[in-house]
């Protein structure tokens, strides 16, 4: 594993005068599942959104698959990327949101085929065939014609995962994918994510699901107050946390 899928170096992010990220450095290897944990407001979701340039970082660098995110380096100068270049970088990074954000006026199938057709230029019938395969994969092969409002939260999130996968991303970002779900619906979404991880997808997951992080995560990163407090394999972080802030957090959630 010579090349990292995601490489972040001293990433800082401010909202006005409020510094949310205070120098985050980390590495995600291809095929790795990294779980970001931490109290709310710690900056873990903001960091995730920086990876696909939904948020602009104020200093530091992020690379995805070797390419700088949002900027182009010419000599020692950084140039902002044009919108079309940012868009094509994003097209290769799948993202799943806490609030699903399915397009409300489109059926599940239309949600899935929209970006492949409009962004990649896939033929409609090819996109439809792929949508069917993806919906089968997330266990919703019979709900292609359902509108988001007709689906439960768990089903909507599974469609959202299928929609992201339709772009054949090399990296998937999950922003608290189960936080908006009723407890009995969390399992079906985690099952889909578990299967995805087993298929070798590189995943960065912001989550409060300690059980999932323990079982599926290759690395667990504990973030507090905009900085990485502790990271490592799940067993060592959960069983034997070194830092007192990690211990305090884990004692509340475990």
């Amino acid at each position, binding site marked *: 594993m010579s090349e990292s899928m995601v490489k972040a170096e001293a990433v800082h992010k401010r909202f006005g005068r409020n510094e949310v990220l205070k120098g985050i450095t980390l590495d995600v290897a291809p095929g790795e599942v990294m779980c970001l944990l931490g109290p709310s407001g710690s900056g873990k979701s903001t960091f995730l959104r920086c990876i696909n340039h939904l948020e602009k970082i104020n200093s530091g660098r992020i690379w995805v698959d070797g390419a700088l995110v949002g900027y182009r380096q010419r000599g020692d100068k950084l140039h902002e990327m044009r919108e079309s270049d940012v868009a094509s970088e994003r097209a290769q*990074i799948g993202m799943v949101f806490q609030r699903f954000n*399915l397009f*409300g*006026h489109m059926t599940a199938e239309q949600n899935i085929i929209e970006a492949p057709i409009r962004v990649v230029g896939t033929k409609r019938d090819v996109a439809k065939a792929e949508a069917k395969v993806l919906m089968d994969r997330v266990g919703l092969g019979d709900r292609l014609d359902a509108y988001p409002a007709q689906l439960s939260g768990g089903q909507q999130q599974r469609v959202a995962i299928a929609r*992201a996968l339709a772009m054949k991303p090399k990296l998937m970002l999950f922003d608290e994918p189960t936080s908006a779900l009723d407890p009995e619906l969390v399992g079906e979404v985690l099952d889909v994510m578990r299967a995805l991880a087993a298929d070798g997808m590189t995943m960065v997951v912001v989550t409060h699901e300690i059980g999932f992080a323990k079982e599926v995560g290759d690395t667990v990163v504990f973030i507090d107050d905009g900085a990485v407090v502790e990271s490592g394999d799940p067993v060592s972080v959960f069983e034997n946390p070194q830092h007192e802030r990690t211990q305090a957090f884990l004692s509340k959630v475990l």
Partner: protein
Amino acid sequence: MAEADQASEPAPAPAAPVEIKAVPVRRPGRWIAGILIVVVAAALVKSAATNPRFGWGTVGEYLFAPTVMDGLLKTIELTFLSMLIGIAIGVLLAVMRLSPNPIVVAASGFYIWLFRGTPVLVQLLFWAFIAALYPVITLGVPFGPALLSFDANTWITPFVAVLLGLGLNEGAYMSEIVRAGLLSVDEGQEEAAKALGMRRMTTMRRVILPQAMRVIIPPTGNETIGMLKTTSLVSVLAYTELLYAVQLIYAANYKQIPLLIVASIWYLVLTTILSIGQYFIERHYGRGTARAVPPTLLMRIWQSFSTWRHTEVDVPQQTRHGL
């Protein structure tokens, strides 16, 4: 002990729930109001039928007169074209208003301030007299060479003046409606589209606007109906739309009332058609939402009438499957 034994006995099988059959509350107020309205309505109908000065014969005579038909067509044409201009300008101004560029925002704000702040009748007169202000209209590089020149009197015909007056004014109102629609769409929709690699224009066209339509359509329907009636203002510019057409007739035969009734009948016919059209457009853009499109006025009247009689009539409801 005996009590405990009783308690432990198996409970009897639950009987089917008994439907409540209660005597309904008397509502004499409703009956009185209903009867009163019916009596007044009957009196009005009788008066309309027996007062010869309504001139129903004349109404019938002129309802389909060629001059009236021609005016009607022009009214429809004006309404349609000026709404088209209004919507196009409205979308443009709304998108400008949400731009990150402050000068673009200010330009949009100035336009709205100017056109919403002056009466449309005054604007119409301005356009009619534009030749007095700019006898020659020149297109070219600002402060630079001219490329094209028009003679205002030949190019700004009454029709063009009227269209500009109504359309530019409408654009100011439409922009607020469109802006409200765009803002009503959840930000997460734009983010999801961005994250999928969609560009801003594609996102606007495919994701934001279609969902904003649900909020934009009802007030736009009102604006269209309003526009239909506002076109009658154009009669002061001697443009022969529906109202001016009937005015020309009654100027000759002095039958003002019957001819104004003719015009009113046609306005009512057109607004009714527009309302029906609006219902179907709303239903189309309501797809994917759980909320049913509200029933039409007629359905509502029927519904309230039937609940009054304590009978149940199913008003057709939009299913969750949409169209």
